[in-house]
């Protein structure tokens, strides 16, 4: 009895691994000419949950006339290097990472959400906290998101500097690695305040992943440009145009599910010139 149950356990394991081998070989054989599209890492997504983004993948594959593989790198650095070494063809980058990727590997900006042109970072704190202004943060524990994030690090850092707070000396700060982690850290009281991407914050509230009653926004940064879809330097003009067109054609009535995945309403063309200010700030703060 015991022996047979052990045998069936072994068989189950072997079968399970066989599924894995199959899953691993199939794309390796089929995906030779697939276009590889990198998503933003801080969505906290995994290869497994990438299936939730299947509508986007199918839409792009149809529009581009080629199979598409969605890939979610673990961090921004990996995304940028992947654009450099050719393991991604298109990718979604934050403003700061775009500036770096453009500088290092000459990536080409294609499209962005209309909201990305007028993006804001939020400074949040606990609802009952005494912190009311940026200057109140002096000596407090503070959370930035990913070190490479525009809305989670660069722009809040600049806003703090603007109001006379030097993060290096006046704050006890740390990087949480992602916007949701920043929100959680503030909610749990691990830090006194944090800076977060406004679209992520709103989405988390809408999904009830955060308790709105526990948190309070006490500062909103001036508008800046942020996320952008880019193509690797060597991707052909034809593919770039097709990719751009696919995003520009997205329409709320017809492609609501895809726009929901992309957390936007409407896409517009993006240019390198928009990023001049951001580049200057990054240089001033020695993050570039």
């Amino acid at each position, binding site marked *: 009895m015991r022996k047979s149950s052990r045998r069936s356990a072994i068989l189950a*394991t072997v079968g*399970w*691994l066989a*599924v*894995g*081998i199959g*899953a*691993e*070989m199939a794309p*390796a054989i089929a995906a030779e000419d697939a276009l590889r599209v990198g998503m933003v890492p*801080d*969505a*906290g*997504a*995994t*290869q*497994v*949950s990438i*299936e939730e983004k299947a509508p986007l993948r199918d839409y792009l594959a149809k529009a581009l006339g080629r199979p598409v593989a969605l*890939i*979610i*790198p*673990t*961090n*921004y*650095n*990996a*995304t*940028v*290097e*992947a654009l*450099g*070494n*050719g*393991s991604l063809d298109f990718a979604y980058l934050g403003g700061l990472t775009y500036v*770096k990727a453009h500088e*290092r590997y000459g990536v080409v900006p294609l499209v962005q959400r209309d909201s990305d042109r007028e993006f804001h970072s939020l400074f949040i704190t606990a609802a009952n906290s005494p912190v009311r202004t940026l200057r109140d943060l002096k000596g407090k524990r503070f*959370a930035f998101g*990913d*070190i*490479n994030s525009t809305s989670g690090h660069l722009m809040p850092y600049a806003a703090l500097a603007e109001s006379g707070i030097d993060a290096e000396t006046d704050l006890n700060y*740390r*990087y*949480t*690695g*992602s916007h*949701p*982690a920043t929100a*959680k*850290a503030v909610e*749990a*009281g*691990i*830090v006194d305040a944090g800076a977060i991407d406004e679209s992520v914050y709103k989405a988390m509230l809408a999904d009830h*992943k955060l308790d709105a009653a526990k948190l309070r926004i006490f500062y909103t940064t001036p508008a800046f440009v942020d996320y952008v879809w880019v193509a690797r330097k060597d991707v052909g003009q034809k593919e770039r145009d097709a990719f751009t067109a696919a995003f520009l054609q997205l329409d709320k009535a017809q492609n609501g599910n895809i726009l929901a995945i992309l957390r936007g309403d409407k896409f517009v063309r993006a240019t390198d010139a928009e990023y001049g200010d951001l580049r200057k700030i990054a240089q001033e703060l020695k*993050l570039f």
Partner: protein
Amino acid sequence: MSAGALPGFLGEFLPPDLSIGYLEALARPVMQTLGMAAGGMLIACAVGLPLGLVIATGAAGTRLLYELLAGLRAIPDLTLAILCVVVFGIGPPAGMLALAIFYTAMVGKVFADLFLSAEPGPLEALRTTGASRAQVALFGYIPLKLKDLLTHGCYSFECAVRAAVIVGAVGGGGLGTELVGTLNAFDYHRATTLILILVLIMSLLDKASALIRRAPRLVFLLFPAGAAGLWLYRPDLVAIGHALSAFSSMLPPRLPAAAIARIPRLLGETVATAAGGTALAVVLALPLGLAAARNLAPSALAQAIRLVLETLRGVPEVVWGLVLVSLIGIGPFAGLVALGLHSAGVLGKLYGESFENVRLAPVQAIEATGATRLSVACFALVPLASGPMAVHTLFRLEWNLRAATVLGMIGAGGIGEALYEAQQLFFYREMMAYILITWAIISLSDGLGQRLRQRLGWAEVPALR
């Protein structure tokens, strides 16, 4: 730190997500992890075995080669993985290469040490037949040391699978990447599933390596697995061109003045994490070890505690670190607790064994006084077992220093975090400088530890993780 937030979080971990759909989706990351480990180990053995033989047979320049391997081994696998991810891009190829490099050094050095300890008589007898170096290796070194080779090979493979999970955490693909993703999304039920799978894989590997030691031929089964891993995760040729230019952009290493001024504080943080983690582990491991000693605790309790220890030990420090960083936030404290939990599993087992191995006579003398179990433990067992326990603890401290730098890279503070931040910001020459510093510290601590053990006349302690 807000330790008060812990219990609420812990509730979110159970029950694990065991839905068929999720398990099916996990087959692929599991394969990636195993494939990376198998492919990396195949390279490591294919290169490391000849290197070990070359060193043992004493060809010209072998001393240098040996030092090179020992030096390479002092670069933590996660550091190599970060380098490989930068150089070869995200995904299993980078992870596999990092494992291949680290374990080539490991296997090469360990095998060389094994071969050097082979009896000289039979080897000279072979040389007298006019056999070449390679033939002496085939007929002499390898059969003479086959058992040890297999034991260490299996042990390295187990470590490689754990390491394959860990390199995934920085972008190497497989279970590690999956775990980072689920933790970032605060999906703790799935994180629990992943950890359970990891523990399961480790215990299966344990059984498999016991089997291989009994029937060495089974080792050949690993070749097709390794070959499949190699083929699936071979890096693109384009990537190799990129790799060379990326690597050259990292040289020479350089640190700005402000960063140099921060180094003492960063090193202090790393050392404190290691020391604190070890201290926490000792505090946890003492009662656990006593409860796990079969000659002391009721057997049902010992059995249960052993299971707990195995779980604590089966989850690598980095995985504990990832979970804790997600739970209690980035910082050295998360690293300290991570080291403490994993090391408590290791030390608890070793302490338990130390208690079981003490001579019985003095213990029985105390028992004869009618003392309770606890006073027997305090007055007889702990003092009698203190020698081996001290050895294990010091060895752990040394190990934890290395682990603390690695934990930094996933957000647990210290020099490792500085390394990770430099890499993230594309300041690669700074990153190289931190890698060199890390390497120097670890080499130094390895050397000191070895000298100390020699001075005290302690035999080499098996490097149980």
